[in-house]
């Protein structure tokens, strides 16, 4: 549900965030589809939590620390590149981040032409 902005605006903003990730980040390119699902879920999920002022730490495990580190770095870069984030409501950020996750899942997993994604072993 989009409260303060229309769908087109939300998509435009989502595209900007997607551009940043595909251009600058390496975490979404793991070589297997199931890895990419986890990476997108955990890192984008935590990024959304940080941007919305929520707690993004689940436990003290090194895995959680890793996803959080990526999310913190991504959040910093998003704020640096896209000042409009500071003026966007938490509800709208949540919507945009949800759209971003869907788009990343499609581009990097479901719609990907990379035939190695479905291999079972590393």
């Amino acid at each position, binding site marked *: 549900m989009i409260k303060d902005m229309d769908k087109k605006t939300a998509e435009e903003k989502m595209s900007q965030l997607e551009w940043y990730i595909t*251009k600058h980040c*390496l975490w979404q*390119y793991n070589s297997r589809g199931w890895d990419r699902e986890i990476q997108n879920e955990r890192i984008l999920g935590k990024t959304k939590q940080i941007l919305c002022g929520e707690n993004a730490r689940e436990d003290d495990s090194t895995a959680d620390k890793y996803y959080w580190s*990526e999310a*913190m770095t991504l959040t910093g870069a998003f704020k640096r590149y896209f000042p409009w984030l500071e003026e966007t409501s938490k509800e709208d950020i949540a919507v945009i981040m949800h759209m971003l996750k869907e788009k990343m899942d499609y581009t990097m997993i479901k719609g*990907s032409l*990379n035939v*190695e994604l479905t291999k079972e072993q590393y």
Partner: protein
Amino acid sequence: MPYHQFECSECIPERLHHAVDKNPGEQLTDALPLGYLNTIPGSISERGCAYCGAKHVIGTPMKDVIHLSHGPVGCTYDTWQTKRYISDDGNFQLKYTFASNMKESHIVFGAGTMLKSNIIEAFKAFPEIKRMSIYQTCASALIGDDIEATAAEVMEEMPDVKVFTCNSPGFAGPSQSGGHHKINLAWLSQMVGTGEPEIFSKYVINYVGEYNIQGDQEIMKDYFYRMGIQILSTFTGNTHFDDLRSMHRAQLNVLECARSAEYICDELRVRYGIPRMDIDGFGFEGISDSLLKIGYFFGIEDKAREIIAEETARWKPELDWYAARLKGVRICLWPGGSKLWHWAHLLHKEIGVDVVSVYTKFGHQGDMEKGISRCEPGALAIDDPNELETIEAMYKLKPDVIFTGKRPGEVAKKIRVPYLNVHGYHNGPYKGYEGWVRLAKDIYNAVYSPIHRLALLDISKDEIPTDKEFETRQTLSDVKLSDEIKNSAVLRQCTSSYDPIPALREKLKKNESYLFPDPETGELRKVPVEKLMKNKVVDVEQ
């Protein structure tokens, strides 16, 4: 993104799906070059073999090891000294190469006995070296020589030595990438967990997929040490054999070249729960973001920010001097497997050049996903090009310089396109802030060399200008620059020394700058330089 049809490859229809043009507005889901497939017969590829990928790329940067190829002498000779993976303790791994020297008679009667005597002879010739890697080749694999059994026999007779065996003959994959895969998993299975390291810091990493080309690892090591991070092992540049036996004790795997070393990171994550963090050690923004996220992981982001600020202030005015003069220069970024994505976006953003083509010799489709995402629209992306395709691309794209290895680089020179060696480097290291400036300087020197301008003239038909006198790179590069940039008091040329690595080694030996937090108390203290040079690793009872 439409597939790109090379005219020269119309007679090899399978090649069509190995190249695409990146057009504005198009997505990775529209077209992606095929990758990591057997080279098509008739296509003269620039690839190496799986043996080369295992031995030359990943195995041999280990510095205290006798690297012995079980096969004809040509296999080891042709993978010797072609890449500058230096070490800080005398370059044993570059000075010597070893082969069992198989001949026709061994193919008929077997070479196992000879291999065993050669292993013992090599250890006796270099008694200070107690570690060995043996690499299978096509010849020894085809006759079924059991190198693992021979190694086990030797280790039983010589209890103070350890021998790692790598079963990656040349035919064991489409390219060198098959060898990367095999040696990653072989090392993990045979060696990881067999040594227990001394942990002297609260923060412990493995630095993976880093081969210390002209000192890259030593540049990055300086940053990590300044943050108080212990590098348990580097896979595999400038590292000890035993360091890599203790990889299982790191808290984080920091992965640089995912193409050659993601496999061991993925498996270390599955087997030991160590997270994999991919980083970019090249380009100011890439390094800064990487140091910051490593900092976040350990809760030392302030230390990372200090280094970022200090290094950026020191080197940015020099980078910008070159960026002003390289704006719009057209380059083909044609490396082996990972630099197309490590470099594409930051070459454009920070050095000002236009990447008109990316290619990979042995990359997989994942590398193309990264490379295509990071280059600008208009670029031509090619997988495993043949020589005629690269020549056609150069004639059509008219690059000012290409970044590649020395074999295709020499081809480029013949059609008067300068090249930079991005495998062994021209004047590296290229990693780190200082390294990125060194790369910019090398691009500048390649593009604006007055000698190159002369080479473009054909004395048999071109008119030779007689109205121009002495030219320098700067007279050529500054023609279109504004006075503001030309006379800038801020911008300056590269001040990095001819070789920055000796100073870093001196800094390490003096041991005045690095403080590590105690693993138990967190108290910051110096660690004896001997440990920084060679960490203690104790054998684990098997």
